[in-house]
């Protein structure tokens, strides 16, 4: 099992969710996050006082998957979140040791 953590532009979140649904993924966790990367921040100006905003808002999508569909999932997320411009985000794939469904106590792939 793998855990995919994708950092995407907030307005691409719906596209990513739809693409994952089509693939048969039954659940994701989304967090509103801020960060910085190659995409530079912007300046805000209030009555002449200039503030540089370094941290830009992004959406963090976390989804746990069986090994079989990880490559497809990465492909559809990449496609859905791509605008071709700097700041599209990143996808991290990590190994997942265990998954437990709290209600039933199922573990492993059954719990996905």
């Amino acid at each position, binding site marked *: 099992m793998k855990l995919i953590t994708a950092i995407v532009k907030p307005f691409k979140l719906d596209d990513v969710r739809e693409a994952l649904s089509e693939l048969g993924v039954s659940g994701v966790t989304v967090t509103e996050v801020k960060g910085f990367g190659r995409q530079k921040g912007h300046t*805000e100006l*209030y*009555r002449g006082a200039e*503030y540089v905003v370094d941290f830009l808002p992004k959406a963090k999508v976390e989804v746990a998957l069986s090994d079989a569909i990880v490559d497809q999932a990465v492909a559809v997320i990449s496609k859905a979140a791509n605008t071709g411009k700097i700041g599209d985000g990143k996808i991290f794939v990590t190994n997942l040791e265990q998954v437990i469904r709290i209600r039933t106590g199922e573990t492993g792939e059954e719990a996905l």
Partner: protein
Amino acid sequence: MISKFSGLVKTVCMLSLLGISQYAAAEEAAAAVTQTINKGDTAWMIVATVLVILMVIPGLALFYGGMVRAKNMLSVLMQVFIIFSMMALLWAIYGYSVAFTEGNAFFGGLSKVFLKGITPESMAATFSKGAYVPEYLYVAFQLTFAAITPALIIGAFAERVKFSAVLAFMLLWFTFAYLPMAHMVWYWAGPDAYTDAQAGEAAAATAGFLFQKGTLDFAGGTVVHINAGIAGLVGCLMIGKRIGFRKESLAPNSVTMTMIGASLLWVGWFGFNVGSNLEANGLAALVFVNTLLASAAATLSWMCAEWLMRGKPSMLGGASGAIAGLVAITPACGWAGPMGAIGLGLFVGAICFWSVTGLKSKLGYDDSLDAFGVHGIGGMFGAVGTAFVANPALGGTGVWDYVSNGVAEFNLGAQIVSQLWGVGTCIVWSGVVSYLAFKVVDVLIGLRVSEDVEREGLDICEHGETAYHI
């Protein structure tokens, strides 16, 4: 300026009722002007008073509140809210008497402390002979001015002062700066005292210091805006800059709130300016139009200046421009023509944009919400500008002479001097009183919160609550 039904008027009315010699009664009434309260004027003044209350709570509170960081939002709302309530009581206890009864040229007397002697029948003079409004209403209307002025000051030192220090300072400043300024500029015997040249001179000698100097201030450019602006400047210089000024982000927590507040101020300002006419007549309509046009012109002017100089037109800039325009037209609104009002607005928008960007960064003081930059600078520009826009040659109404009952000959040079007397007196008086009042409060209570409190936020540390739970 307050008078009661004279015995003569009662006699005249009784004679009329009895049908005895209508002609004789009319003749007698012409000799001594009949003093009446007009229900239309009264109804308008009730509405105007409510509108000025709306300017303070929640207008000014939200306008200022939106500009601070989220951790200090409630401290600003609270300061405005409590200052309003506190000044209301002080006004009834001694404020009204000290500002609006006869005394010397600087302070009124104590004859109406605790509103002594005022009854539902008491009358307050307007600007037309024989026309009066109920004195209770005049007390309430002027109360709202006395309440908003101290609240304007807090913008200069928001985010770093002790709540208790603010209240103590306001008690002193209200007593020794607001009340005498209001007396100096606005106290006079009322139009009915100006029956002939001799009586006019005698009446003028009882008026406030700046009234005698001929300073024109229709709705409080000097008394309210310069007065508060100077106090704010002295305050932010004495209290010092916020921690992180020019280093950390001190960006507004909600320009949306600021826009709502600015809009409530704008709407309420029609009560402030038009209400200052005290009557619902043609002049009130002129004041209304002037107030509307000057603020719209200043909004556009600030926006254009910002767009040209900084590349982007901002909502905060638009809201600030509207307030700058309202400040500048306040002293002039009863004497300017509509085109004069637009001119005044166009100038003040750009001037105040410069004062809160260029001037402030050059001099390096931390006037958090630009109480001085907008109200002080805008007020001074409006006060001097009043001399120009009042000029009948520039479409103004000129100044009414209550002795000859016509528009007096307008002398621009002399009027500019009169306006400068107003500005200069206010700067010195408010500056000195503010300095002394801040010193006293600093010794007794301490003006500034500790560094820990400032970092944590005034809402939690001073008031035990937070504005937002998201």
